[in-house]
């Protein structure tokens, strides 16, 4: 299990790209932290989530 935005989800083994797709999140509007470090956007496809990881998906919405 992987802790994503505080929720335990069955995402171990998935890449960040696959996780975002499963969450139905637009990858152009997020920043992703893995164990408190930023995941570079270019690495989403090759960064694999492991059992016990903590992920924060920061979703941005429009307006300013």
């Amino acid at each position, binding site marked *: 299990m992987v802790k994503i935005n505080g929720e335990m989800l069955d995402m171990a083994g998935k890449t960040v790209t696959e996780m975002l797709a499963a969450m139905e999140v637009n990858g*152009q*509007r*997020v*920043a992703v*932290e893995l164990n*408190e*470090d*930023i995941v*570079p*956007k270019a690495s989403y496809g090759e960064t694999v989530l492991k059992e016990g990881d903590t992920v*924060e998906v*920061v*979703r*941005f*919405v*429009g*307006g*300013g």
Partner: protein
Amino acid sequence: MALPTREEMYAALEERHGAELQKKLSEASVAVCGLGGLGSNIAIALARAGVGRLHILDFDRVDISNLNRQQYFPEQLGMLKSDALCDTLSRISPYCEIQKDCVKLTEENIPELLSGEAIICEAFDRADQKAMLVNCVLETMPEKYLVAGSGMAGIGPSNTIITRRMMKRFYLCGDGSSDVDDGMGLVASRVLICAAHQANAVIRIIAGEYDV
């Protein structure tokens, strides 16, 4: 009436904020990226507080649709926002050093354009541009403090707008969900709340107070 001298302005700020904080504020340098409802209000709050140097960046011009929430005047319609806001900031805080850039920020130019400031405010309006700036700063400039805003559209409750410390040097203000793309307009009062959260987060960082 003649303008107060630099020393008179400083003494008045020092009296209100205390000598220790005012010294930190006057030595601080902050970049404000995007000069719309968030950025224009953030910059004015920081100028009033006596922040010593502000770097303001926007590619756009003042439009009549901005006047409901952005700190511009009808006679400034058509001006570059960077020019119009620079004029206003100079009236508020005549000894503040202001660097203005009329430029569209991209992944390519951000590292160079924002190299001079320790604290960066994200104040764009489009979600994908917010994400671009935040990712670029966190990936390429890990030594910077970054204060972003997301979620302040509509007239929802004031108290849903909060400041969160997402990473050691990354703060995010807003309710996180009120999206202008969902048809909710932006209203001055609620945009100001988010801008004030961002400005206060900046001032706390300058003061060395890092918790939220």
